[in-house]
């Protein structure tokens, strides 16, 4: 066992972990931050995307020990300070960009990274960027639309209901 310390959603946390403990397990089990979801075992689905030192990372692909000293952000820390949905979260609700909600935390976290790198992505850039985030419910239409809207772009031309 080794002790790890890190900042998660702005709070200092620490815990004892095995060498094989994944960051996703540390977040979910030790810190009870269960919004980070596990949808696969091959780093494909993206339900576990978190931010580590500002970069989008699949938390199932990183050992907790590797995040020692890091600044980690999870879905639980994304809302505005007053508890209201942030711009990305609000866009997902406004455009029905989620159904069962399981892939959603990863989608929101990946979107935040995308918009940080590319504040006005094209539809194709969004679709390409989401290569590592799988959704089975929405057919992606409303996810792409929500991300366009979150980036302040006009979505009225996107095929409506």
């Amino acid at each position: 066992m080794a002790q790890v310390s890190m900042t998660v959603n702005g709070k200092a946390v620490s815990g004892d972990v095995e060498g094989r403990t994944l960051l996703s397990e540390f977040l979910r089990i030790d810190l009870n931050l269960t919004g980070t979801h596990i949808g696969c075992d091959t780093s494909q689905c993206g339900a576990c995307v978190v931010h580590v030192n500002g970069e989008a990372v699949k938390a199932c692909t990183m050992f907790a020990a590797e995040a020692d000293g890091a600044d980690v952000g999870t879905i639980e820390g994304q809302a505005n300070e007053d508890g209201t949905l942030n711009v990305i979260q609000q866009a997902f609700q406004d455009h029905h960009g989620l159904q069962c909600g399981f892939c959603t935390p990863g989608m929101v976290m990946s979107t935040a990274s995308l918009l940080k790198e590319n504040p006005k992505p094209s539809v194709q850039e969004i679709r390409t960027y989401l290569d590592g985030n799988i959704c089975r419910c929405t057919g992606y239409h409303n996810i792409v639309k929500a991300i366009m809207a979150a980036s302040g772009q006009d979505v009225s031309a996107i095929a409506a209901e």
Partner: protein
Amino acid sequence: MPKDNTQTDGGIGASTLRREDIRFLTGEGMYTDDIQLQGQTHAVFARSDVANGVIKSIDTSVAAAMPGVLAVFTGADFAEVGGNPAGWLINSRDGEPMKEPKRPVLAHGKVRHVGDAYAAVIAETRAQAMDAVAAIEADIQELPAVINMADAVKGGSLVHDEIETNVCFDWGWIEDNRAATDAAIKAAPHVTTLELVNNRLVPNAMEPRASTADYNKGTGEYTLYTTSQNPHLTRLLISAFVLGIPENKLRVIAPDVGGGFGSKIYHYGEEALVLAASKKLKRPVRWTASRSESFLTDAHGRDHVTKIELACEKDGTFIAFRTETMANVGAYLSNFSTVTPTFLHGTLMAGNYTVPNVYVNVKAVFTNTAPVDAYRGAGRPEATYSIERVIDMTARELGMDPVELRRMNFVKPDQYPYASAAGLEYDSGNYDRQMDKLEAMIDRDGFEARRIESAKNGKLRGLGLNAYIEACGIAPSNLVGILGARVGLYDAATVRVNATGSLAVMVGAHSHGQGHETAFPQIVADMLGIDPESIEIVHGDTAKIPFGMGTYGSRSLAVCGSAMVRATEKIIVKAKKIAAHMLEASDADIELVDGQFTVAGTDKSVSFGEVALKAYIPHQYPIEDIEPGLEETAFYDPANFTYPSGAYACEVEVDPETGKVTIEKFAAADDFGNIINPMIVTGQVHGGIGQGIGQALIEQTSYDSDGQLLSASYMDYAMPRADDMPFYQVNHDDGTPCTHNPLGVKGCGEAGAIGSPPTVVNAVIDALQRGGKNITHIDMPLTPSRVWDAMNAKGV
């Protein structure tokens, strides 16, 4: 009662944003694996790595002595308990009942597919349990596996020795029509024959299956948290068939569930195992599938091999459809595996058409593969694909426009109720209207110009259009009982008005993405004239909700929503009596308008809230005439299926250099009857189309000849990504209301997955034909290699 689709006051017809989104978007959802219990332990399963084998011995002694290990179970521990049953008895053409081999909690004696669990370890941590599973010494003698259905029906290696065949049943529908259909086809001027494969799919809900059992030794009660679409059905199966736990001692909770698509309808052995283990250890036992386990053990979908014939007059008038299908049921009968290829498929084989003769033969075949069961659409996608592909082929052979051929054979609006030749009574529809709308949505008139433009870029452009009809909300119970169902197919709702005027509505349906928590209150709010925000939907817990059958087959709104309407009607009747007392009037004179009970023709009124308060604080109350409280339950058993229908169009470009298909446009014109929340309905259609396009273009479940699943991860199974999908045009205005349920609603959950696969394939074949390639069919998925191979085959 329903208002038009444009209402925006938060009642019926409003695209109210989903209230459940708040918790999902902030990480506050509570899925089964998120639930941590004091003293919990972890189960991990030992699974067969061969497809067929005799279990000679299992030595668990080393595993049992490993650190943290609390218990080890094998099939022998469950030899005396019941099996997981098939929910529907199908009789063969000769009247013989289907073969129904036992499906045990853990494999005993034999393993029958890769992933078949034969032992389980319970340990303090998941890692310890995994280490101990690796130390189990199982001597399993591998036998030849039977993977391919054509091989399976010939006999040879058997999946279940005791039934002496690999054919579960040989079903005819409608058997009495067989001779007439054969004769009609023999005499027909034109017959088109198409052999096709409806490819096997893995449902792949993003949340893997998970189950946690918590046995309370003080009360003898079990609580099972599990990823289920229907907690009461799961409880019934465990209680009545598998473990014999009395229903009153078993509480099943399906909390937030991350998608189902059919795969979480069924009871699985892991649920029984954690229950038994929790009782033995007197501690909670949890299990969560890895994605690899999901691929190997979730019930798969589709997997039909079909020959369909369409006979018609020279002018295109349909005379007969005749279908021969082999349907793979895998190694064991999953709960709905026998009804899916039969009544959910054969009864739809008249499609949207006035064809006089239909006959369907289905052989269900055991193989050494994962069980196959209902997956989004469940039988209707298989029917629609066969019908709508063979019609396109017929149109080409007759030199007719494929849309005109369909239109001339459509059931017409003045023919309802229409008794189809496949045994259903369609209550409503307007297929021409959907097709009119579709042709405008896809801009069919502009296609030729777009095709020429594509050709300039070296691409082949094609357009596919087709109709579909499906059947949702399977019912009534009396009829399905005659047809072999072992369950009823009603649903239930309890409406509880709280003393302060807010409501809890307990429903048998389960929401795992469908947005019931938002849409259902819209209905009750409309009926009572109150704010939807004051209504809470309670679902997913057998201790809280009435006995309902859950969510599958696009039944929730049509069946459970109707029960909710009936219960709310009872609330109104009683509330009017209370109001009449308060207003010193006759209850026949009380009107409920916008949440106010008013004596007709006067200005005397009391609010809904005042009546609720009076019901719970019954002072100066006619206690001898009216019970206190305001809570009502209704069970609703539909008179018929609902029949959603529609028309779908897809426009593709094919790159002749690579065979790659790109979807340029996709349009869906659906008839779902009345609409409660258009935004949610649109989302349901999007998702279904996404899965349908996935089936048509990329998804393929591949077993090798030894029964190893080659596509067992997201690196090998082509799950649709955002970049594989187009935007979709969706329209469901102007529906024809269902005539037999109080809301006039039909099901919308599966339509997209039913209507779209033939659309995509028809478009690709159209592109190839227009490009001068004599290709009449390619089996799904239409991957670049399959398309390229077809284009470069000899003689094309």
